């Protein structure tokens, strides 16, 4: 088989190289320049922002052309596409926009380059956002923007943000009944990564963590059971969260809140800009954001997400690719993204500037307050499978197929078994 694989592999590489060579020769003849490809998401305003910045980069580097390769917006579909390209050792795309939790997986597989060799500056990034991109002590990607889970609330239905989880439930139930709003609170409850991010916020609120200081699974705790029990009760007992939320992702949740059907919403920063747009939002000017509330024994927690930029290990233009990444991460570009797309820059120094407040139409101090309590997800190449195990357990408990204690205990055992099998404990960022 080794021979067959090798042959197939070689054949594939030959074909790719020939085709690419043909493509490059064609390009060279036309413009005499190198072509870089950047793969990532480019929907609406985001596409606009990226294209502008790529044009400026090309203007500054006349020998380089950059092509934007649009990839699916759904995370698992993009992941699958990247796996196909990278596993086939295709030399393009050169620069990849990754979800922050993929970096260790791609780094361990040898698919992306360690960036230390290019001498990238790492001093001005949020430490948690940077740490998520470290594998075996080296940096494999740099944060492009950070996402955090936060609480949106209706200023016309409640007069203050909730003090803690109990308070949130009380306020939600009262406002729902007094104002005849269908839902008190909406969050992402479908069986996907989003559910894990919501759970991590409840877990933090009750004082639990996913990993302990030694990098072992710490989910088999009273805090985890209480967090999951609370989420379940919000649906089944207090009935502030609709059962339908168990099939909802970010957008369904946003639509519910945007149409005025919910008092509170847990979502990412992207929703802020869209909700302020009076042409599509019924709650424009009638909502505010803040951190998710703390619960007994814990603190407010915001799951850290976001995108990072990495370089394909088989890129023929690695040096140019690193220049492109450096350019896209300059404050000017990050502020432009903040203003066009509403994404939060990963550089703490920007939060001391008034320009960011104007770009986001928000008080940067308020954003800083939310970012103070970020919780990172484990940095391990098997993160996708860890998350898969947890998603299934959470969803089983929330759909009343298992009680929360059994679900959590079972998930903790399977997750630890998986980590033991990897042989390398993940580092807690």
């Amino acid at each position: 088989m080794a021979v067959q694989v090798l042959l197939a592999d070689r054949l594939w590489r030959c074909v790719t190289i020939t085709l690419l060579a043909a493509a490059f020769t064609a390009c060279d003849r036309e413009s005499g320049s190198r072509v870089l490809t950047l793969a990532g998401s480019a929907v609406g305003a985001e596409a606009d922002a990226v294209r502008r910045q790529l044009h400026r980069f090309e203007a500054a580097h006349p020998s380089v052309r950059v092509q934007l390769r649009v990839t699916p917006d759904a995370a698992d579909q993009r992941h699958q596409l990247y796996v196909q390209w990278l596993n086939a050792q295709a030399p393009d795309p050169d620069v990849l926009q990754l979800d922050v939790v993929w970096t260790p997986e791609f780094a361990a597989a040898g698919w992306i380059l360690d960036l230390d060799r290019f001498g990238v500056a790492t001093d001005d990034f949020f430490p948690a956002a940077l740490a998520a991109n470290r594998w075996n002590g080296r940096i494999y990607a740099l944060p492009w923007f950070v996402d955090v889970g936060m609480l949106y609330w209706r200023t016309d239905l409640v007069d203050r943000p909730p003090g803690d989880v109990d308070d949130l439930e009380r306020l939600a139930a009262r406002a729902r009944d007094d104002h005849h709003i269908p839902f008190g609170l909406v969050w992402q409850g479908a069986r996907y990564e989003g559910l894990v991010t919501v759970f991590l916020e409840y877990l933090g609120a009750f004082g639990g963590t996913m990993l302990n200081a030694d990098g072992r699974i710490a989910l088999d705790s009273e805090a985890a059971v209480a967090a999951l029990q609370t989420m379940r009760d919000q649906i089944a007992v207090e009935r502030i969260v609709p059962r339908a939320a168990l099939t909802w992702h970010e957008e369904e949740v946003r639509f519910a809140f945007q149409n005025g059907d919910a008092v509170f919403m847990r979502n990412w920063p992207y929703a802020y800009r869209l909700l302020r747009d009076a042409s599509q939002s019924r709650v424009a000017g009638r909502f505010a954001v803040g951190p998710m509330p703390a619960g007994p024994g814990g603190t407010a927690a915001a799951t850290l997400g976001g995108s990072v930029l990495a370089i394909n290990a088989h890129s023929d233009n690695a040096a140019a690719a690193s220049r492109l990444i450096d350019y896209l991460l300059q404050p000017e570009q990050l502020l432009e993204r903040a203003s066009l797309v509403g994404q939060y820059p990963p550089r703490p120094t920007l939060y001391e500037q008034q320009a960011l407040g104007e770009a986001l139409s928000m008080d940067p101090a308020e954003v800083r307050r939310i970012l103070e309590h970020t919780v990172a997800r484990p940095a391990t190449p098997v993160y996708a499978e860890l998350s898969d195990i947890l998603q299934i357990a959470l969803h089983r408990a929330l759909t009343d197929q298992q009680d929360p204690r059994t679900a959590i205990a079972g998930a903790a055992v399977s997750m630890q078994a998986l980590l033991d099998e990897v042989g390398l404990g993940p580092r807690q960022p």
Partner: protein
Amino acid sequence: MTHDDRLAWVLALPALAVIALIALFPIVWTIWESLHLHDLRMPWRGHPFVGLANYAEAATSVRFWRAMAHTVLFTAATVVLEIAAGLLLALVMDRLSRGRDVVRTAILLPWAVPTVVVALVWRFLFESPSGPVDDSLVLLGVSSPITWFADATAAWVPLVLADVWKTTPFVALLLFAGLQTIDPSLYEAARIDGASPARQLTDITLPLLRPALVVAFIFRALDAFRVFDLIYVMTGGGPGTATEPIALLTFNALLQNLRFGFGAALSVIVFAVSFVFALACIRIVGRDALAERVP
């Protein structure tokens, strides 16, 4: 070997080569892969030969057996409903004297719609809290309709309905073709002998339709056993893993978790089960049905 034999082999060679390349090679490679540990996430573990360890892991996994059970359940439910509904449609088409072509085309339409589109439409119909199905239930006086896709049992209803809706036309057409081959003089003779329409159905139509029924059954059962796209789009296997079929579990192992060795073992199991099932069907039901066939 005669000259003609040799020529026949030479002429068949390109076709055989294509079959070897696109059918045998991937199967052999997948079997080989399934005997190895191959995990893209952990390249430092290498690509060692592990014998049947991947199969042993599947055999001891609760999720695997549940996925098998879901697949069998889905196959049984859809095949029974599709053959019953398909037979009914075929008999109706057969009785029509006018407009047969129009009806046949209309019946075939669902079959022509891509599965993913069917899945999206049916998901929309059963959406909560305000999909058309739930809205209709509210109009009928049900105060709090089911959240279909958040209920481990109810989630099967839209899945099975969507598959039946899409695939019944295929069964109907197959059976309709079978009905055309039955000699009308048999019915004439039966009428002269005073046999009731019910008696004609059980004693003439069904026995003579048996080969078509067997073909429809095998095709549908094998297809339903490999169900992926419909469930992937409609429930993603959820809630929890309550509707996860074996093909989705395999996809998950291969493309989400990048466990190529284990994923290959699951693929081989699906392949082996389908293969044995098809062989068994043909030997037990098929041969016997074909032998009885009246010219």
